[in-house]
């Protein structure tokens, strides 16, 4: 009988093993730090803005920053990102203005962006449904002879969806250069991992699609970087897709509307908070002597300034034109679209 477990369930680690990632100089290490801090600041400020009623419901990604920044830094500008709501601000790392993303959470059409401008797909709300998009894009780029790869971000819960399965299978068959990046924070709202899958580890799904799978510590930004870089190289060199399971633990509510105290393990949450990903990396950089207080200050101040400007711009944006209700759905709309409209 086929063994249930694959060969390797241990998490890849870099920071805790005190390793260094080949080819990453001080400049890159600091750039990565800037991205981490920017995402962290975006998230923490957004929570405040929400409490102040300046944005609507918001999906918190506190302590998910390492998975997002680590993977994006391992990719080239030509590569496509397919975020879920959990990665709503990942476009910041590709130059999408903070105000644009804040608009999205403010329910303002100015929250739209052109995915092609940044190679960042629209934020995907229906779970797992963007996995086929990423597979299709990667396959399509390959057919054109381009060297671009794609990465799709999704959660542990998403692996239960048929759309995840059909997208992953398509990627495996077409040997599409796509990275299936699973943010395994061990919760789908209130549903724990053991109620989500019978698998020993989500990475065990990879073999069923004929793709390599790798498991990393999702709080270790360098482990994420390293694994993603390998997967991207594999994809670019015709090796097809890779499944990455990044393991972490959700240390914040699912979203601003959620109260996890009813279901979550609060001690485990505390533990996770102590070991949160930005601090871990910061300590690592200080040990390496790449970061000191002055630089840390400056980076955080810069991020705060970005957010200050972002929210100011967002709030300066005039109310959207009601006519936008009818805009953009069709290049060539049906004639009777405004039927019954009276302004």
């Amino acid at each position: 009988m086929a063994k249930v477990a694959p060969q390797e369930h241990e998490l890849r680690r870099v920071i805790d093993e005190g390793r260094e990632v080949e080819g990453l100089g001080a400049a890159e290490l600091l750039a990565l730090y800037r991205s981490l801090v920017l995402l962290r600041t975006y998230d923490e400020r957004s929570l405040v803005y929400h409490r102040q009623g300046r944005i609507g419901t918001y999906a918190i990604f506190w302590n998910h920053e390492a998975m997002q920044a680590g993977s994006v830094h391992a990719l080239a500008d030509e590569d496509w990102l397919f975020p879920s709501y959990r990665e709503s601000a990942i476009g910041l790392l590709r130059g999408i203005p903070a105000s644009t993303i804040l608009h999205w959470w403010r329910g303002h059409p100015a929250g739209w962006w052109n995915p092609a401008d940044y190679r960042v797909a629209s934020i995907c709300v229906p779970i797992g449904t963007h996995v086929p998009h990423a597979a299709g894009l990667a396959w399509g780029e390959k057919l054109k002879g381009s060297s671009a790869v794609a990465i799709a971000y999704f959660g542990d819960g998403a692996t239960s969806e048929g759309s995840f399965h059909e997208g992953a299978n398509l990627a495996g068959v077409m040997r599409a250069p796509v990275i299936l990046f699973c943010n395994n924070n061990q919760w789908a709202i209130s549903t724990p991992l053991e109620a989500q899958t019978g698998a020993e580890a989500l990475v065990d799904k990879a073999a069923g699609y004929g793709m390599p799978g790798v498991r990393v510590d999702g709080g270790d930004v360098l482990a994420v970087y390293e694994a993603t870089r390998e997967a991207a190289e594999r994809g670019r060199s015709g090796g097809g897709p890779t499944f990455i399971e990044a393991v972490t633990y959700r240390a914040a509510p699912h979203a601003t509307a959620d109260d996890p105290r009813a279901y979550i393990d609060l001690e485990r949450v505390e533990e996770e908070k102590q070991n949160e990903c930005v601090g871990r990396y910061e300590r690592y950089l200080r040990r390496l002597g790449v970061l000191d207080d002055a630089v840390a200050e400056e980076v955080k101040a810069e991020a705060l300034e970005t957010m200050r400007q972002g929210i100011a711009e967002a709030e300066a944006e005039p109310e959207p034109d009601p006519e936008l209700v009818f805009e953009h759905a069709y290049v060539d709309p049906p004639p009777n679209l405004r039927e019954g409209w009276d302004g």
Partner: protein
Amino acid sequence: MAELFMVEAINDAFQVELARDDTVMVLGEDVGRAGGVFRATAGLRERFGESRCVDTPLAEAGILGGAVGLCLAGWRPVCEMQYDAFSYPCLDQLITHVGRYRWRSGGKLEFPLVVRMPYGGGVRAPELHDDSPETYYVHTPGVKVAIPSTPADAKGLLAAAIRDPDPVVVLEPKLIYRAEKREVPEGEHVVPLGKARLVRPGDDVTLVAYGAMVPVCEHAAELLEGEASVEILDVRSLKPLDEEALLASAAKTGRVVIVQEAPRTNGFAGELAAILAEKAILDLRGPVLRVTGFDVPYPYWRIEDHYMPSAERVANAARKLLSF
């Protein structure tokens, strides 16, 4: 009589029906440990056990397909779809199996399952938390569809759905979940499928609606105060439909405005208008007007109010009819 919010009335229906029939079980995403993202199933897991209120994997086709199997095993599963737009992955199971399996058994088996979900807009939510998908359900053979607009009906229609021997889809207007507390009968309360609710009698014009559009019509009636005597009909049960009530009201007022939140083309308002064009043509004193959403993606919430049929749009349609 207790004063309850709609979502509390739904929970009340569960408490009563699960206690009454121990083959009834609830399943869905986050219905157990969290008691549902809207708390509709709060307390059920604690009271009835984790096998009667089950947190399923995140897979809507798996939930509904699993429920088909549960029916074969003698259970009466009530499936929650967390939001309207997240029910679409279950459409395949609904169309190809739920609505057909009893027929396939030559009428020997029953599939007393329920699919319920919060639906509709106006709640300032991110995209795909705002859809009104009733057309996809009503058009599907073998399933029944109900949409309450009051706490009492939410309890009574859910109870009826749970007791019905056929598959029933219940769409719950999330905009009304906590809008206001209203009187709800305690204990067993069943509102039979197939009966409309006369919200208010009137002589000059009939406003026909269901779900979240009923309060909009009530507001429109206030705007028309002094101009016309307005009758409001809450369809409540889309399938089976209370055609008599619809035709009776049309015969009485001769003027009908149908209000629907869903996109206009091929929405359920069109079905109601078609029935009038077929069976009330001699009673009509003017065109049958539809006030609806539009054939576009439901807008971002900053402008959603321009998409949603407003009391003003409804009142203007009525005025158009009155001066026809």
